[in-house]
């Protein structure tokens, strides 16, 4: 009885999105989370990240699905940073990248929520914040894809499916140096974009998704992200991004 009451009033965490075995990912940018070492300096997971400035070669997926991100090449490892209150992974916009394998196409619905801040859009045309865009050029490699635009510094673009399904979030002013939480929702009838939990736009339909290559944070053939990532939640079989957005906002804004 007491245990049930305790769980009922426990803070909401993204693990509830995966409680019934749903596919997806949950990444946090801090070395230890709820007593578990989450970040490692090497891709093999033998040397823990401890200090501000340590490189990140492995980031464990907390969803229980084993979709860990890794980077075996020493020079390409992004950097763990903290100011004592927030934690983030810093990407240099040159060669930093974390990867995990392809996920299956969602059979129903899917949400993707990312907290980030870009330092600069000066050095890359389409910086990729997070997405299914690590392989050869193919319009279909989006599940989802969240990217920025050097030519449009007030914009964040999300895509599910092909190029013509891209939808833009207009921030109203430059996004450089702004901490943002973007939610891309693959709904039963359409796709929707949210900024800091607020609905921005709704597409006219539901895109067809096609398998692609692995997911990446940091760099892609389309552009290198220069900035900080505060957390990622991607969850299948839901189109309600509100709780995940509030969680990511709590560790980003």
């Amino acid at each position: 009885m007491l245990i049930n009451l305790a769980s009922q009033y426990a803070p909401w965490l993204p693990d509830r999105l995966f409680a019934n075995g749903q596919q997806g990912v949950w990444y946090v940018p801090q070395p230890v989370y709820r007593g578990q070492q989450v970040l490692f300096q090497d891709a093999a997971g033998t040397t823990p990240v401890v200090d501000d400035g340590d490189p990140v070669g492995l980031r464990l997926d907390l969803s229980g699905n084993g979709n860990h991100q890794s980077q075996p090449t020493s020079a390409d490892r992004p950097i763990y940073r903290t100011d004592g209150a927030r934690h983030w992974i810093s990407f240099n916009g040159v060669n930093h990248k974390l990867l995990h394998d392809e996920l299956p196409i969602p059979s129903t619905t899917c949400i993707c929520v990312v907290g980030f801040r870009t330092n600069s859009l000066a050095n890359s045309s389409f910086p990729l914040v997070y997405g299914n865009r690590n392989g050869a050029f193919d319009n279909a490699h989006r599940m989802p894809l969240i990217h920025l635009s050097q030519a449009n510094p007030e914009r964040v673009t999300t895509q599910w499916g092909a190029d013509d399904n891209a939808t833009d979030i207009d921030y109203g002013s430059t996004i450089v140096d702004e901490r943002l939480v973007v939610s891309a929702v693959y709904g039963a009838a359409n796709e929707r974009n949210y900024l800091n939990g607020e609905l921005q736009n709704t597409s006219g339909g539901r895109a067809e998704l096609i398998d692609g290559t692995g997911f990446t944070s940091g760099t892609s053939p389309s552009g290198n992200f220069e900035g900080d990532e505060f957390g990622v939640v991607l969850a299948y079989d839901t189109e309600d991004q509100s709780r995940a957005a509030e969680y990511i906002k709590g560790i980003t804004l």
Partner: protein
Amino acid sequence: MTTQYTHSVTIAVPADWIADANHLACLLGESSADIETFRQATYTDGTTDYAVAHTVVKAAFLQPTLSGDLPETPPHAEGLVDRVAAQRAFDSLNQSGGLRMAVDVDPHEQFSDWGLERIPQEQEI
């Protein structure tokens, strides 16, 4: 405690030097995967194309530039590294036509100082 990664290096490798540079990277690096640190030239000075990298390093990484001697082959590089190739790359550091390296600088500013621009090969989203 503070991180052991107290420095950063920005490196630009002329396309013709990529193979040798990878042997040097693996010798000085921390993973067998470092044998493929430099893959594709993504910057150019208008004449020569360069593969680039920017990374944090421990103080020991810079020791060879102070002593002039490359370290012993570490376990992760056994059977991978060609020390002759690594030595060629090391000897070319900051020589005309060779590898370029700068320490503790912003990479984008350094690329600009070197006269390097990103090769416009980014594919459309």
